């Protein structure tokens, strides 16, 4: 009992010192019990009232350039989550303040912005949803000991694999996403699959690689696997007539289209125009309705993504977020990747409460203990080895006669981690 009291006193002292340091100090030596006590104490209004400086959340995400369609909605929902968190009392009694600077999808510019934001005191850095683009900015944060989160990176490289022990993504990564594609399509259409492989970026390359591995594990056969590529501006680099013919001649039960619009939409249109009426299964890259004008009245098209933005998602948190997003922006969400922005702030808040401070190392350690934590993006887990989700359930969606609808939430039975 005496020990608990002493721990409590220590906790109050520790929390006061945190507050005096503007919530930016560290308490590396605090043990588990002390940390929990800190959370309890800092939640009190008494301490909150003494917080003089806000916790700065810096964003070096892309508000223009080719990553902006992914980054901007996620940043918007991060903003919504920050307002919600602040209204509920903030984090560790401090209000969150977002400073967002447009990195223009430019890795060097993002690194400069990261340096600047950290020098302004940012204790969480948000970076763009593609590892190739955010690598330099992430490294800046890593070197400065600041937690760095790319809300919707779908590659397991975001984390320890890239030396980013402080780097996380709230995205659902390809090892899970493409495994779901394979498992669902095999059950529905198997066993002969054709791969239509977009070789433009790592995401789509890995998508087809994981799909193929899981498909063959399930006992399926890959009957053809033609490749194509897109220009950096996002259109087909060359006609795909020959590839479509190869797929048609291989007579598959299902086509796995590993791509993203606009070239992905062109490829889907070419498949249908070339007489391939086989069901097509794809991933998050083909989420959204904005590309559907390229393939009017598309049917038998299925894709795996975070959630449904078409008004039929069964998760009330998603519906609530989509309504808030429309209130904030005046627009309907283009794709469901935006759920990761809100989840980023939710995860940061929970990690800070668990760690009792905003030190990058402590926050990372707290995040690594997440085991199916219920966030807007779904149950979220991290481990010291993996800072991206591969087991989270994802929405299986369909397009029939040009209309989207939700089928089911489904988790990968066997994610493919290499």
């Amino acid at each position, binding site marked *: 009992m005496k020990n608990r009291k002493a721990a409590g006193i220590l906790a109050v002292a520790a929390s006061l010192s945190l507050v005096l340091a503007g919530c930016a100090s560290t308490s590396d030596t605090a043990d588990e019990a002390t940390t929990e006590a800190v959370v309890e104490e800092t939640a009190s209004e008494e301490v909150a009232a003494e917080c003089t400086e806000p916790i700065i959340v810096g964003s070096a995400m892309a508000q223009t350039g080719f990553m902006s369609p992914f980054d901007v909605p996620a940043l918007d929902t991060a903003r919504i989550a920050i307002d919600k968190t602040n209204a509920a009392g903030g984090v560790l009694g401090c209000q969150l303040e977002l400073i967002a600077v447009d990195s223009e999808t430019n890795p060097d510019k993002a690194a400069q912005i990261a340096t600047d934001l950290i020098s302004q005191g940012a204790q969480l850095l948000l970076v763009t949803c593609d590892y190739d683009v955010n690598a330099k900015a992430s490294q800046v944060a890593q070197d400065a000991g600041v937690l760095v989160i790319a809300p919707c990176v779908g590659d397991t490289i975001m984390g320890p694999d890239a030396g980013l022990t402080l780097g996380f993504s709230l995205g659902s990564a390809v090892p899970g996403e493409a495994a779901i594609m394979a498992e669902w399509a095999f059950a529905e259409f198997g066993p002969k699959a054709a791969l239509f492989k977009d070789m433009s970026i790592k995401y789509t390359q890995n998508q087809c690689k994981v799909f193929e591995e899981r498909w063959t594990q399930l006992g399926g056969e890959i009957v053809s696997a*033609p490749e194509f590529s897109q220009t*950096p*501006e*996002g259109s*087909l680099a*060359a*006609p795909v007539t020959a590839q479509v013919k190869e797929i048609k001649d291989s007579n598959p039960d299902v086509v796995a289209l590993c791509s993203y619009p606009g070239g992905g939409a062109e490829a889907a249109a070419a498949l249908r*125009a070339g007489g391939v009426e086989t069901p097509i299964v794809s991933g998050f890259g083909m989420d959204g309705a904005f*590309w559907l004008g*390229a393939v009017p009245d598309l049917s038998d098209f299925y894709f795996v993504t975070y959630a449904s933005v078409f008004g039929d998602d069964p998760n009330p948190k998603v519906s609530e977020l989509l309504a808030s997003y429309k209130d904030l922006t005046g627009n309907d969400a283009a794709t469901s990747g935006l759920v990761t922005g809100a989840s980023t702030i939710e995860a940061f808040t929970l990690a800070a409460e668990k760690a009792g401070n905003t030190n990058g190392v402590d926050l990372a350690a707290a995040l690594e203990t997440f085991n199916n934590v219920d966030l807007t993006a779904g149950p979220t887990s991290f481990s010291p080895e993996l800072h991206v989700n591969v087991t989270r359930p994802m929405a299986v969606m369909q397009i029939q006669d040009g209309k989207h609808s939700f089928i089911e939430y489904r988790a990968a039975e066997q994610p493919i981690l290499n």
Partner: protein
Amino acid sequence: MIQTILDALSYGGIYGLAALGIGLVFGVMRLVNFAHGELIAIGAYLLIVTIDLGLPLSILIAVTGTAILALLMEFGVFKRLRLAGPAVLLIASFGVSVFLQRFYEIIFGALPLSGQIAPWMAGVIEFGDTTITRGSVVTIILALVLLSAMWFFIEKTTLGLQIRAASSDFQTARLLGVRSNRVIGAAFVFSGVLAAAVAFVLVTQRGSVDPLFGVNITILALVGTVIGGLGSLQGAALGGFAVGATISLLNSFLGNYRVYTYTWLFILVIIVLLVRPGGLISNKAVKERV
């Protein structure tokens, strides 16, 4: 095989039209107009946002709008830089290009706008075992008609003669009474019309348009104008055609090595330039000035 040849011809045709549009402006004022891609993009945007008015009216709006934007570029920026050197003009065109990309992003958004302009161009035509896509046939016909019309205009009309004269030697043409502003303005207008034609074919194929819609084809068409022969209008069209057709053929013949299409294309470009540094059809006036 027939489809491979048709694809090569149609791809070559589109790139030929784009290169001719760039070559027209380069010929009369030695401007390598990087903003040509944004002319193509505005043509595509106008087609998609006005298609509900019907295809003929939509095409008319796109052609007119693109030509007007081309003229605005000339009067708003390039006319004010008449005495500037080619490097300044080049950088100015970069500036116009980036400005317009951002402008489109603000007006139309960063996400692609999608829609079907000519659904009748989708699908295939079957001859026994052979299938060919309708889009490639229509594109070849359109490219042939437009290239023929441009040939007629350049070779058979007074304005065309003046443009040819100005392309060959601008100063001498001026001394002989060719009105420079009129010729340059005409070159921009026709460049805009050709950009609209390219936009029609591309947006029909892609089904969507985004702010960077015209960038890739413009860069490759510029390569085409260089290997065709800078300053030569026939050379520009031929060079553009060669680039487009080569991309398409490489894509067919490289099979699953087609990710190296652009690598091989540029190896071939280097070889052509090593053998014929002035391009396939070189223009003496340009060579002397360079």
